[in-house]
């Protein structure tokens, strides 16, 4: 008996999907796996054929096959979403004509469907360096699907290495520098779970960089501070969190802090952490390749101070507080003034107090 009603229901559903429920209704439908509209089997009856392609006007081949297993293991497949929930314009057969001229154009059209369900993430990308590049006409800039994949989205959990590898697809040169850095080496060689990957500094969807924000450079110390000001985390590596205080106390850091507070939209004219330590290739301080190791420090200083000579780098104490042992000159100059200021000013105040007291007494006597 059921076997008789079943086809009827499917038939009704299909005809609704085909004729009675046009696009707008589907598009407005929330991401609810329980109302797929057109069943996936219907689409897969064609699209699971391996190697299906269609030629675009550019002559490029657009692959239109979908591996059902691949899709079923994706996050959307596992949760039972329907093809037509993303491909909202493909609810009918024959499908509407493609308007994309090239593969890239096709991708750029399709990824717009992501925002239907992932509005917040999409909105967030609007502030990203990728969106800025897109707006400037660079169609290579990454869109949702370039990073997340298409039918295999969320197929397997991303390791931190894989996350960096996502960026590598377009930013291979920077990725290679990162791999050599103290952070990258710890990630790849030691599987360190705490070192930053690309997104820890640049953000996830609202990925920013110096090309997006003029202020990126200026505020970059705050990115470093996310980890390097964390005492517990830094204790794991034996790194002092004092580095910020000593930086801010210095001419460079003082200027940068003032720019942050007063002229946040202006490019800093003083170096931040990355200008000395390196951007993607910061090394351990005892690495011979480190920009700030003693033998390389003069060259690093000379980037901004071209006339600097051999003594010049020693004017920077390397983030150390001056102590009697390390920098006795500074320590004792400081100590001298720590004594002489209170003594001098105290003496003045005592003398003035005596004079004031005398004047008050005199006035009282005059009244009596």
């Amino acid at each position: 008996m059921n076997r008789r009603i079943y086809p009827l229901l499917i038939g009704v559903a299909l005809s609704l999907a085909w004729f009675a429920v046009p696009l707008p209704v589907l598009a407005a439908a929330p991401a609810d796996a329980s109302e797929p509209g057109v069943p996936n089997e219907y689409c897969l009856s064609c699209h699971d054929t391996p190697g299906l392609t269609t030629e675009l006007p550019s002559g490029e081949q657009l692959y239109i096959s979908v591996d059902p297993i691949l899709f079923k293991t994706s996050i959307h497949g596992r949760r039972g979403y329907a093809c037509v929930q993303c491909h909202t314009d493909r609810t009918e057969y024959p499908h509407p004509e493609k308007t994309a001229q090239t593969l890239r154009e096709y991708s750029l059209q399709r990824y717009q469907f992501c925002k239907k369900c992932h509005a917040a993430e999409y909105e967030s990308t609007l502030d990203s360096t990728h969106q800025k590049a897109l707006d400037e006409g660079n169609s290579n800039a990454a869109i949702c699907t370039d990073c997340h994949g298409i039918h295999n989205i969320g197929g397997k959990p991303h390791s931190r290495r894989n996350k960096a590898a996502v960026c590598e697809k377009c930013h291979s040169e920077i990725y290679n520098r990162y791999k050599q850095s103290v952070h990258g080496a710890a990630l790849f060689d030691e599987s360190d779970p705490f070192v930053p990957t690309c997104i820890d500094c640049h953000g996830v969807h609202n990925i920013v960089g110096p090309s997006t924000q003029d202020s990126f450079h200026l505020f970059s110390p705050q990115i470093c501070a996310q980890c390097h000001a964390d005492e517990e985390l830094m204790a794991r590596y034996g790194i002092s969190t004092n580095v910020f205080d000593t930086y801010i106390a210095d001419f460079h850091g003082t200027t940068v802090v003032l720019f942050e507070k007063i002229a946040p939209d202006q490019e800093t004219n003083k170096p931040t952490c990355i200008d000395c330590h390196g951007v993607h290739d910061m090394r351990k301080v005892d690495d011979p390749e480190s920009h700030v190791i003693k033998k390389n420090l003069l060259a690093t200083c000379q980037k901004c101070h071209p006339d600097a000579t051999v003594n010049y780098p020693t004017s920077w104490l390397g983030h150390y507080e001056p102590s009697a042992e390390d920098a006795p000159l500074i320590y004792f100059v400081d100590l001298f003034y720590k004594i002489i200021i209170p003594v001098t000013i105290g003496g003045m105040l005592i003398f003035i107090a005596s004079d004031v007291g005398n004047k008050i007494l005199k006035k009282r006597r005059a009244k009596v």
Partner: protein
Amino acid sequence: MSSERKYLRFTVSDRIEHWVQMISFTTLGFTGLAQKYATSPVSIWFIALVGGVETVRILHRIAAIGLMLGTIYHLGAIGYKYYVKRSPITMLPTLKDVTNAWNTFLFNLGLKKEKPQQGRYTFDEKFEYWAFVWGTVIMGLTGFMLWNPITTSKFLPGVVIPAAKVAHSSEALLAVLAIIIWHFYHVHIKQLNKSMFTGYLTEQEMREDHLLELADIKAGVGPPPTDPKEVARRKKIFFPVYTIFAALMLTGVYFFVAGEETAIATVPPAENVEIYVPLTATPFPTPFPTATPIPIGNTWEDGIAAMFVIKCGACHVTTALGGLDLSSYQGALKGGISGAGIVPGNPDESLIIQLQSKGDHPGQFSPDELTKLIDWVAAGALER
């Protein structure tokens, strides 16, 4: 008393000198302390008001030039006063000033009946003058090091520069506090001494603070009258010497100000790296299955049934949409509500082939598959 005599204390040039040093010092104090305590809200407010830290630094340096020029003038002025005019050097501190200070303190405490009598410059004025001299020397030396760190580190160890910064900033605090506490108390609060602006002290004021000087004036004691010829001779020596001295000093100021280019104006890019270097020419991230042709034989059981399941199964195997049930050989022959699906030996009459040949049926066969299907039907649509 209102018709009392006034006594000239500061000449116009003295007063101008004071104005220059006062404006320079005040500017240096404000712009310097704002940098010393850069992260305090007051400093940030002040720096923003002035127009940013770079403006503050430029003002600080302009004021420093003002102070240096004022100092060079002052050295000339005292040189003239003491060499050419042979005025008594009244500003030199003596042991008497120490006892004067101590006795004034005791007087204030009521431990002495009389206030010590003092001359042209009282001990507190001398103290302030020499403190200013000391401060100017320290600030000038350390200021040079901070302004010219590269030149400094050519001759001295680098650590001298942060040490100079500590000294410069601490000495500044001392100087500003001394001005606010000592200077302001003595000439603004204790009594408003306007002589630095008007030039004159009243007899009452002279009596109060400079009794010995007043007595000297009244007694007509002054510098011995000099032969105008002698004065002219001294001038002939003084002016060339001072001109050379001032030229040297001004050269010094020039090197102070423009001796080195400490840093280039803008920070160079921290990294030169190509941003977009894709691993593949066109990023197209999904792996695509390649065609593995379905093995289609020439009987229902040898591939034709499998092809129907794959291509048509969603509607016509798991269900029987339109009455067409392709799950069995009989179902395929029988067809759906529109008529026979397969007519053995006659592909043109077979509805499935008719529909598929139009090319727009969901679950469309590939041309190859369609050919295989037609061949199978033409050959009699064998079941096995």
